[in-house]
């Protein structure tokens, strides 16, 4: 199915994305487990091979780039576990995707209240 919603700036994790991203999401899901997080950090390339990531997925992981990861089929909920390895939360992830500084992103969130 195409992204039938077509809402600007808003990825939809549907069957097409789920098929494309399965290996990547499975790897990120494994990061619920601390031992797996450590194994990944000890040898990222080997860990990615074990999970059979595609080359674009590997590149996106190497770049720690959330938009690339989403384009490669990643789902934000599993990607959050990848970000968690580096102590990054949803605001860091939001700042990176919008090209804002963390402070600017936080101010933008606060501004919604007014």
């Amino acid at each position, binding site marked *: 199915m195409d992204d039938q919603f077509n809402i600007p700036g*808003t990825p939809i994790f549907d069957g097409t994305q789920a098929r494309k991203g399965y290996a990547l999401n499975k790897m990120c899901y494994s990061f*619920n487990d601390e031992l797996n997080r450590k194994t990944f950090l000890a040898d990222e390339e080997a860990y990615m091979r074990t999970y059979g990531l595609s080359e674009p997925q590997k590149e996106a992981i190497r770049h720690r780039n959330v938009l690339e990861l989403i384009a490669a089929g990643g789902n934000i909920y599993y990607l959050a*576990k990848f970000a968690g390895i580096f102590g990054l939360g949803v605001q860091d992830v939001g700042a990176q*995707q919008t090209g804002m500084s963390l402070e600017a992103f936080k101010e933008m*969130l606060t501004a919604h209240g007014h």
Partner: protein
Amino acid sequence: MARIIGAIATSHVPSIGGAIAKGLQKDPYWKPFFDAFDPVHDWLARNKPDVAVVIYNDHGLNFFLDQMPTFAVGAAESYTNADEGWGLPVRPPYAGDSELSWQIIDKVMAQDFDLVTCQEMQVDHAFVVPMQLLWPDGGAKAIPAVPVTINSIQHPLPRAERCFRFGQAIGRAIESFPRDCKVVLLATGGLSHQLDGTRAGFINKEFDLWCMDKIVNDPQALASLTTKEIIEKAGSQGVELMCWIAMRGAMQGHVSAAFSKYHIPVSNTGGAVMVFDHEPVVHRLAAE
């Protein structure tokens, strides 16, 4: 017979759990949010529910894409929390109520919902954070709970209308439960937020306030929304509204808002807390 005495709806963002772990409840950023729970605690102390049915969405702790359910019902004696990968302290287990679980499973299946039953289930922040907010003294002090999940990760999601009718089916199941007990519903998630894409950080105060109005007196207005409309207006993770819609469906008597608070932002989210009183139809008829 069991009676649904009301419901509590609240945001569940993980950073609330982080703030609790760090004791930041009086911190200027967090104080307005946590203070909103004082009246909720009063409501709980006054109404003394015996058991909670918690409608939420799992974020990739218990369920993965190898086996992704649309609607799942916990049927365990207790539920463990676990590491979600970002350093929240793991909470002690919460007690279940497997008799009520099977009542819901049996009666909701009979109404043509195709459930997944979980005799073992890990509950993530979307269950644990609201339980901490409502019962800050911890797992052992909280009332027993039945977790019910709605898929909000992978499309196609169940439509809002389907979630509303799922809630109605749960409501009928609870109100035909022969045990004499007071049930409170919890709905967790939302309101508007978006974590992914270049629209990340999107929050829609106007829509959130509209939802908080409609959910009391005109829930059909919410049930009629398409998934696309919800994502446009509430952001891609704003689909957690489905949990609120299901909760509201379960209350088919007279509903009134006992308390309501909206606070922006809680992390990336339009933070909302609502408490509903519910007077079941049968009791109203008996009183007339």
